[in-house]
């Protein structure tokens, strides 16, 4: 019983405290093994948190999508996400570009392209429309095929 409570305490602490105590410039991401360990993130709690993360299936969160028109008049899309998993996540994305009538603009660039997102890190990728007729887009993702 005591052991169960102790384990539960470690799990809850690891989950709740993970990320606490981090300071510094958010633009710089210090990876585990680079930054100093703390109460929530050390050799003892990491395996516990890792197991929990795997159990609940943490993955990619989409944080932001920026759409703008570049100087040449082409739509550019930048997607920013955060990988909540404890391992590098790889996935493919494919963009379909739409004109003002909602019709897909065919392009040889509309193929599955790979993205790699480091564990517990923010990542971004950018894509450009093939034609100035493009006014909108839709994006699909899938797990990378090995």
């Amino acid at each position, binding site marked *: 019983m005591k052991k169960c409570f102790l384990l539960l305490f470690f799990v809850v602490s690891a989950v709740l405290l993970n990320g606490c105590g981090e300071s510094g410039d958010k633009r710089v991401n210090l990876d585990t093994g680079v930054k100093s360990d703390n109460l929530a993130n050390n050799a003892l709690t990491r395996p516990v948190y890792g197991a929990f993360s795997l159990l609940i299936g943490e993955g990619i969160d989409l944080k932001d999508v920026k759409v703008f028109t570049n100087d040449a008049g082409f739509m550019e899309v930048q997607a920013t996400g955060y990988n909540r998993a404890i391992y590098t996540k790889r996935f493919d994305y494919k963009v379909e570009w739409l004109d003002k009538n909602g019709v897909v603009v065919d392009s*040889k660039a509309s*193929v*599955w392209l790979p993205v790699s997102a480091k564990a517990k890190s923010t990542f971004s990728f950018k894509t450009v429309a093939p034609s100035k007729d493009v006014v909108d887009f839709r994006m699909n993702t899938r797990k990378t095929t090995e």
Partner: protein
Amino acid sequence: MKSLSKNNLHWCEGKTMKNLLILSSFSMLFLIGCAEVQKIDTTNDTGKQVLSLDYRDFDEAASKMIQSLISSGTLAKKDGSRYVVSTGRITNDTMQRIDTDLLTAKVEQDLMKSGQVVMTSAVGGKESNRDETVYNMRETRDSSKGEEFKQETLPQKGQIISPELSLSGKIYQRNLRYDKDKQQVEYYFQLKLSDIKTGLRFWQEEVLIGKRGSNKSVAW
């Protein structure tokens, strides 16, 4: 020793025949399964990777090249008109027999669709980049056969438009020993866009596609 009775013999033969029939049926089904051909779903291919270059790699490289070129703004003329571009020499420096059109055809197609570029078939690094009809009709015009044609429909002298930019590049391969069981193969796709008049290079891009696989696999 009991001699085999006729009934026993028949029973043995019957059972053997039955087993043989079952075995033959399974063998045939197995062979038919082996010979089955499947069409690749090129839109959403989830097939495994191969060590050599396949169509997915050319798609990926071409897509990245196209996006880099369009977003660079290099092809945006101030007056909104289109550049005349020719495809120069694309060298295949890999161990595979690759038609470099697998890369350039996709790039050319999207560049033309972008509205910023028109490709020329009058000159090019390879025969497939040129259309011999452009010159054949001029030879016809200058020969006796030319008299058969309506003269105003024949191409006149001084009408071919010279390209302003040239697309050239290279695909090359590096093979490395990863460990005792695996090899690493790196494919580098390089494209450059140069101004023909001045010789200046306005755009350049390199796409790397790396693969790791068993030493037993071949990358050619």
